[in-house]
């Protein structure tokens, strides 16, 4: 079974809950209804044999509604095919059902998405920050979080300060120009 067969089956079974479907460079992506996520994922795992959850990421599309998107990358070792499932998440209700019960590996992936973007995964057994410390007040991978970071203070735990960017991030430019044109330097592009 290929991923297009799998998508056909999902579309037949959940036709009202598939919001978007895209095919790009041989990869199929489905945007599905947030409320039906666990049902669709469980169908993918049990019936379509997507036994491997490769990754979960969250995207902040600032200015677009819904603002966030949670992306699940699935792979089937049985059928050697890939499938991408996306759900849109509103700013007001940043709650997505957890898929830890289906793939235990989702545990840390969901914690990372929670830590970096601030998506709450309901039903997650242990939703703590995974990279930043507990109590850090920001979500650093959101688009409205400044590149230099923000100051924060938690006595005896950790603190953070904005970094000196000196005019912009250090950017490498691929070219055959002289070193000072190529090497990582502040180019004031932002």
């Amino acid at each position, binding site marked *: 079974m290929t991923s297009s067969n799998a998508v056909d089956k999902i579309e037949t079974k959940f036709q009202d809950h598939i919001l978007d479907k895209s095919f790009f460079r041989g990869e199929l992506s489905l945007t599905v209804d947030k409320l039906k996520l666990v049902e669709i994922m469980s169908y993918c795992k049990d019936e379509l044999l997507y036994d491997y959850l490769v990754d979960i990421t969250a995207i902040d599309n600032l200015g677009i509604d819904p603002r966030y998107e949670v992306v699940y990358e699935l792979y089937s070792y049985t059928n050697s095919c890939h499938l991408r499932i996306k759900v849109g998440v509103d700013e007001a209700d940043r709650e997505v059902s957890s898929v830890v019960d289906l793939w235990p590996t989702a545990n840390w992936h969901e914690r990372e998405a929670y830590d970096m973007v601030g998506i709450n995964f309901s039903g997650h057994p242990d939703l703590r920050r995974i*990279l*930043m*410390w507990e109590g850090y007040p*920001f979500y*650093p991978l959101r688009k409205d*979080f400044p*590149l*230099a*970071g*923000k100051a924060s203070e938690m006595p*005896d*735990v*950790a*603190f*953070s*300060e*904005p*970094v*000196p*960017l000196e005019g912009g*991030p*250090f950017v490498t430019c691929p070219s055959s120009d002289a070193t000072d044109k190529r090497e*990582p330097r502040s180019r004031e592009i932002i």
Partner: protein
Amino acid sequence: MSKKITPAAYDSKIEGNVTFTKLDTAINWMRSNSLWPMPMGLACCGIELMATGASRFDIARFGMEVMRFSPRQSDVMIVAGTVTYKMALAVKRIYDQMAEPKWVIAMGACASSGGMYRSYAVLQGIDHLLPVDVYISGCPPRPEALLEGLMRLQKKIETEESVVEQKKELLKELSH
């Protein structure tokens, strides 16, 4: 009329076995030649630190081979690698647990200045928290660079005047 100079206390039994020196110099000589590093390996610099401790570069030539993972037994903290904010206060705490006298080496670009990580998550140099004695450039520095840094630290220790300072403090206290 020339006065004949005779040694003040000549003793043939100890001739050649006694050296006159300052107490500070003697103490500094002992301290600088038995530095016990606290290997604070936080990133890839830690790998070069391990290489420095291994046979090819042989840190034992300088009397520094006794890497202690207990801060209470170490003299010099080698901060090797990227200090994230999450780790920063833990590094400070370990430094605070080290007994005086103690020194700090910032090994590599990250520990010295944050390096390439102009990031919300990375402390921009361990000198924001600890008094650094020697900074070593490099990303990561080669073991030779670390050894050079340690030799610079030895040179620095040899110029310290701990006993003189203690004496001055004592005299100050007595005069009050």
